[in-house]
């Protein structure tokens, strides 16, 4: 019985893995083709399309824009998520219930609706399209998630632990630093990670908010593909995958990816 479930479980994991990895494999492989159209399996092997990518400065500037906005979204989501989570968890203030309701229903709003709404809103506020408006738009997507993660982290924190720390001589800031913050650390890292990916990946909202001379990488790729569907696109895709891998490795180095998902941190 347990053996059967284990075999089934392993099989399921392998299938899911294949399903997730297959598109990546196709993208990476077809970026090497010598043909001027995307095909799999690739015909021949060349790095020509990578040269193409680096020959197009608009892709580089789009990458810089996307990465910058994504980093900012990650940092701000973490900070606002922490502040918002603490405020909702700790204090009774007017509109608290409403705020919580808005935050938890934010997921339910389709991004396309959000895009249209924000377009309208920014226009009426007279906000010209800029990296700043794009960042604002992404924060609407990512902050609620970060707040909810922080709230979940705080729910797992025993308030007595904070009292204990204070009683042992820790002034409020050190209580926060040594007891509260560690309890929401995973939540903050997870929230920042989610914000980064969401922002870096976003096409729908960005399509509404950006102008022709301010295009994020997904928008750039999307626009490019409408006219030229050549392997440049798959080469960029491959580079994005590489970028993600590097990002994961870096984060792994610093905090340990396992911790993001609440896994046990003890190896001893």
């Amino acid at each position: 019985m347990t053996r059967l479930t284990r075999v089934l479980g392993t099989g399921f994991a392998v299938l899911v893995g294949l399903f997730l990895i297959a598109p990546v494999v196709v993208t990476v492989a077809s970026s090497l083709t010598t043909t001027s159209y995307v095909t799999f399996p690739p015909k021949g092997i060349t790095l020509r399309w990578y040269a193409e990518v680096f020959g197009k400065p608009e892709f580089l500037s789009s990458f810089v824009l996307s990465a910058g906005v994504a980093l900012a979204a990650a940092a701000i989501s973490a900070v606002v998520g922490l502040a918002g989570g603490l405020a909702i968890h700790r204090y009774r203030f007017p509109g608290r219930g409403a705020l919580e309701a808005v935050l938890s229903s934010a997921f339910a709003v389709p991004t396309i609706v959000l895009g249209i709404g924000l377009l309208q809103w920014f226009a009426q506020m007279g906000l010209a399209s800029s990296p700043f408006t794009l960042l604002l738009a992404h924060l609407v997507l990512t902050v609620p998630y970060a707040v909810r993660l922080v709230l979940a982290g705080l729910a797992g924190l025993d308030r007595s632990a904070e009292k204990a720390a204070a009683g042992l001589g820790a002034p409020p800031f050190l209580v926060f630093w040594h007891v509260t913050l560690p309890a929401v650390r995973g939540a903050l890292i997870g929230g920042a990670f989610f914000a980064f990916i969401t922002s870096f990946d976003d096409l729908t909202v960005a399509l509404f908010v950006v102008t022709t001379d301010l295009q994020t990488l997904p928008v750039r790729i999307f626009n490019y593909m409408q006219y030229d569907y050549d392997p440049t696109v798959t080469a960029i895709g491959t580079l994005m995958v590489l970028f993600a891998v590097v990002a994961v490795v870096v984060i792994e180095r610093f905090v340990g990816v396992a911790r993001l998902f609440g896994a046990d941190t003890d190896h001893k």
Partner: protein
Amino acid sequence: MRTRTTRQEAERSVSTSTTGTPAGPAARRGRLRLDGVRKVLGGKEVVSAVDLETEPGEFLTLLGPSGCGKTTTLNMVAGHLGADGGVIEVDGTDVTGTPPHRRSMGMVFQSYALFPHMTIADNVAFGLRMRKVPAAERRRQVEEVLEMVGLDGMAGRHPRQLSGGQQQRAALARALVIQPDLLLLDEPFSNLDAQLRVRLREEVVALQRRIGTTTILVTHDQEEALAVSDRIAVMADGVIHQLDRPREIYLRPATDFVAQFIGEVNALDGTATGGGACEVAGARVGATAVGDPPAQGAGVRVYVRPEVVRIQADGDGLRGTVRETRFLGSRIRCVVATGAGEVTAALPFDAQVPAMGEEVTCAWRPSDASMAVR
């Protein structure tokens, strides 16, 4: 505050042992005084005008049913809650407005409240780190206190790798290592199974006797309170009903509440005849007045524990008919119907057991019973 820290550090370096001796620094400190302390929570007065004073080195228990305001009181002593009235003093210093981190109090919580991301050693060292004790000295003291609570060898573990009892020992070590003025224990044993609860509580009492830190225990378990305390404050609805030694509390309850809350009691209505005596159902019985003796002719209630009631064939006392006798192992339970209602006696197992329907007298020593104005 500065001066206090320096004083403590000076003492620490003078005493060779952190744990101190009965005559050590801890024994001279820790006189807590509450004067009219009140707290309103959610529009309700949950602690009303509590007065309390401990001797240095005393083990004092706040005993009362759930929701009577014990934790609230303890939180005010520790500074986690501000008092809405009254004064809290430690060794003559008013600490009513002092934030918790400037009071020197070690608190142990029902939930242990260890820091989950730190090892046991780091948990215990936390208070020393906050006091800027150098690392080497810190390690030495942590080791010493862990050994004292029987946790040597567990220093490198994380709290969740410890059993409940071990976690509670670690919490105790963490509170003791700072040599607090007061040790505050909020139902520290209630999450443990019955056997461990008794064992750990014996250990805590022995430890407390040894290091002499004034200790306030909060519990709703009357047996625990009787077993460990120098004195017990019985609380109900935010008011201290009686504050006395366990024996007094048990034998001479001051109010109905105290009498009923702690074990079984015979409550007999009578009339005071002056001079510390009273009349119940026509018979003269003795009982000690708690507080001022009631005026002659006042309606009083006499509280008598079953264990102190003697059943005699004749003599002075309350006459009645034996209704029931039952062998209970360590005791024999005997119910006598008297003019003042049923009186229950818990006789020693080797006592002469009266026959059913026999006419007997219920008697007790006046010092073993109390009376209070109705």
